[in-house]
């Protein structure tokens, strides 16, 4: 196809356009027109019905609210259950924070079973990132453990604590108590005997020291 100038092209375009509009110009049938107009009317009716229903519903709701709200409640009485729930949560959390005995020395047998499990779940993180204050507190409480005379008196909170106590007992050369403590530790935290346990190496080392004495 040869390149033509714009003027030549515009001339062709004018010619074709004139020729085109001289020819037949089909239009949609009347039935098609009617169908489309009917749909347009129906859409408006549906739209207005929807809006009317919506406004009627809103009006009904407003009237109902006006009728039933005879007494104007104060704000805090409108949200009583939410406020009471929040207060309960705050109270429980506060008790847990304020009372360390509830955290460290469970009194019931159920707590004895639950606490080691809870500590066990958290122990990998605690083994790595225990803050100094927490570790000091454990040692302090662990130092009280060597004073126990029977296995039943021994209370181990976590494998970490157990290992620390064993180290302390070994340092103090309290071998009998160390052996008993070691047995309780193995009973309460048998997973410490597995190689993949983070405290396994420390456990094995202190165990060897204790058992070879």
């Amino acid at each position: 196809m040869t390149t033509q100038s714009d003027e030549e092209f515009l001339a062709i375009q004018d010619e074709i356009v004139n020729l085109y509009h001289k020819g037949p110009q089909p239009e949609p049938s009347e039935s098609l027109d009617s169908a489309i107009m009917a749909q347009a009317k129906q859409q408006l009716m549906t739209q207005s019905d929807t809006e009317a229903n919506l406004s009627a519903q809103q009006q009904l709701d407003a009237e109902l609210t006006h009728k039933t709200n005879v007494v104007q409640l104060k704000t805090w009485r409108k949200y009583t259950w939410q406020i009471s729930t929040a207060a309960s949560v705050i109270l429980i959390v506060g008790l847990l924070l304020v009372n360390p005995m509830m955290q460290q020395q469970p009194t019931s047998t159920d707590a004895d079973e639950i606490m080691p499990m809870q500590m066990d779940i958290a122990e990998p993180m605690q083994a790595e990132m225990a803050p100094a204050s927490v570790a000091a507190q454990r040692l302090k409480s662990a130092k009280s453990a060597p004073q126990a005379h029977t296995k039943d008196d021994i209370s181990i909170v976590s494998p970490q604590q157990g290992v620390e106590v064993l180290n302390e007992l070994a340092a103090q050369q309290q071998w009998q108590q160390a052996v008993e403590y070691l047995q309780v530790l193995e009973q309460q935290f048998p997973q410490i005997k597995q190689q993949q346990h983070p405290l396994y190496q420390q456990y094995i080392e202190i165990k060897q020291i204790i058992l070879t004495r």
Partner: protein
Amino acid sequence: MTTNSSQLFAGNDKLSLAESDLSTDEQLMLAYQSGDIKAFECLYKKHKGPLYRYFIRQLKDEALAQDLYQDVWSRVIKAAANYQVNAKFTTWLYKIAHNLIIDHVRAVKPLDDTQALGEDQTMDDFMATEATEPEVQFQQSQQAKTLQHCIDSLPSVQKEAFLLNVELGLTASVISEIAQATLEATKSRIRYAYQNIKTCVSQQYREA
């Protein structure tokens, strides 16, 4: 129709969407949105012819053309409730039409993928085919018939660009937006469409 010529390669003809600049189409659509059925009727009457011919000229199947035509208006009606003036109404309308043709026709590679007449085809074949269409009038001039045959022979993209230009006077810029093609590609399509039609018509006259 000299206005088409000057507008063919015009630059930016995007509608200014300031409310004061809204053309009649957008105002009619907004009026229909507000509940004015007469506004829609006016809008429909203005666009029904060109839109109908947009489908009829591109499709061999008249029933399909009518279905798609009605589908376009159905979508316009349903969209009226949320209609916003983001573009010219015409551009929006024909984008819908274009996409419907793309979805329903070009995906299955129908007969409208026409090329120039093949070696074993003569104008008599088309004459016979077109003679079966109910809208064909015996009184139609031979030139108009020939023209229509030549339009039918165009590749689909050229045919669409040609129809939008000749029916509505749309510029290449607007057509490129409707057809989702580049401006340069659209300009080429329009140019080649007219040149092909001219060549085809001249050839038919010589053969006649």
